[in-house]
């Protein structure tokens, strides 16, 4: 914090680097892994998927067909969340070679919360925190070895203190 100007200058440089060299390299990498839908360049935010208003719509936008339910995926969410503004979600897959983990909330206005993509060498696990408008199912969708797996758990969203 003391060396703010210096830090900002470094960040500027880094941003430039990210916009040029880094981006192209990754696009090639992702293309090779087949993680992106045809025609979508890297870093193009999947607007269709993130605007989906229903689970079916979101799955279609993610290119998912009939995901298998799997015990090899552990989805950890609280049974009761005192506040829907912050609901911790951890997904751990014991299926090797996880390529992608998506987290969805079936009753949210926009059901898709996040998509994580995993290069080789990164473990098939992630922790994040999502907002939930009401009691709903949190769904974890795992893509590994070209196949999709799905696991869901209900989180009860309750009133916390008084005044509600």
């Amino acid at each position, binding site marked *: *914090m003391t060396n703010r100007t210096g830090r900002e200058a470094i960040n500027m440089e880094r941003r430039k680097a990210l916009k040029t060299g880094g981006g192209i390299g990754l696009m090639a990498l992702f293309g090779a892994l087949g993680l992106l839908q045809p025609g979508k360049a890297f870093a193009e935010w999947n607007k269709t998927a993130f605007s989906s208003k229903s689970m079916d719509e979101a799955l279609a936008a993610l290119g998912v067909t009939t995901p298998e339910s799997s015990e090899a995926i552990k989805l*950890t969410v*609280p*049974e*009761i*969340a*005192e*506040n829907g*503004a*912050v609901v*911790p979600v951890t997904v751990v897959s014991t299926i090797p070679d996880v390529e992608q983990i998506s987290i969805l909330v079936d009753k949210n206005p926009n059901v898709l919360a996040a998509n994580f993509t995993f290069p080789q060498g990164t473990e098939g696990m992630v922790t994040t*925190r999502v907002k939930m408008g009401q009691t709903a199912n949190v769904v974890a969708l795992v893509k590994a070895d070209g196949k999709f797996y799905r696991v869901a758990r209900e989180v009860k969203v*309750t*009133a*916390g*203190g*008084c*005044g*509600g």
Partner: protein
Amino acid sequence: MNTSNLTRMILVLALTASGSALAADTAASDSDKIEQYREMISDGNPADFDEMRGEELWKKAAGPKQASLEKCDLGKGPGVVKGAYAALPRYFKDTKMVQDLESRLLTCMTTLQGIPEEEITAKPFASDKKASDISSLASYVVGQSKGIKMAVSTRHPKEKEAFEIGRRIFNYRAGPYDFACSTCHATSDVRIRMQDLPNFHVKEDAQAAYTSWPAYRVSQGLTRSFQWRLNDCFRQQRFPEPKFASEVTVALTMYLAVSANGAEYVGPGLKR
């Protein structure tokens, strides 16, 4: 045996004694689930950011006098921040008053920096998703007492008086709901909705509650100061608004802080 343990023991007895205790059983396991939820969100406290913001403000020249707060005396000598919060509120000779952290920061900002008091007290709390300067400064200062044991003195007659008055405010029933602080905070093992309530007559409860404030409230996305905590308690008590850093708030803080003596300060906390 204190009342907390006794109530708990009786509840346990009741559970084994009768099937009609099923409701109590469910309540307990739901509380465990809430506990599990709190555990899951305990890592990565955004209050850290408010501490960082406060540290910058502390060191930055500001106000008409273009001075930083690095000469501010929080009771351990000018500029000493480490451990200061664990010994507040305390009596200050220069102001001839017992002051809590925010009241003292107010003194420093007005005297050292020349910022008009009204300017600070007009919006003393974080609001509209924005932090307030005095509240961020408080976050920074409390963070510098992490791991230090609470040791608030009542040796000075004024400190003793503040404690005694604080106790009376704690039990003062008024307003359309007849509530006092004690209505919710003088019984063990009770909750409002899902929210467990600390019993300030039980040492461990008082310690756990006091040492985890200020705190980041996930429901509000803001780091909340102790003055805010009291202000919002009075709102829910259906009281009028206590003036910021007023004697009524400092005396009550004194009563609560002393009841937490001996416990390690662990804030800023993270709450629902």
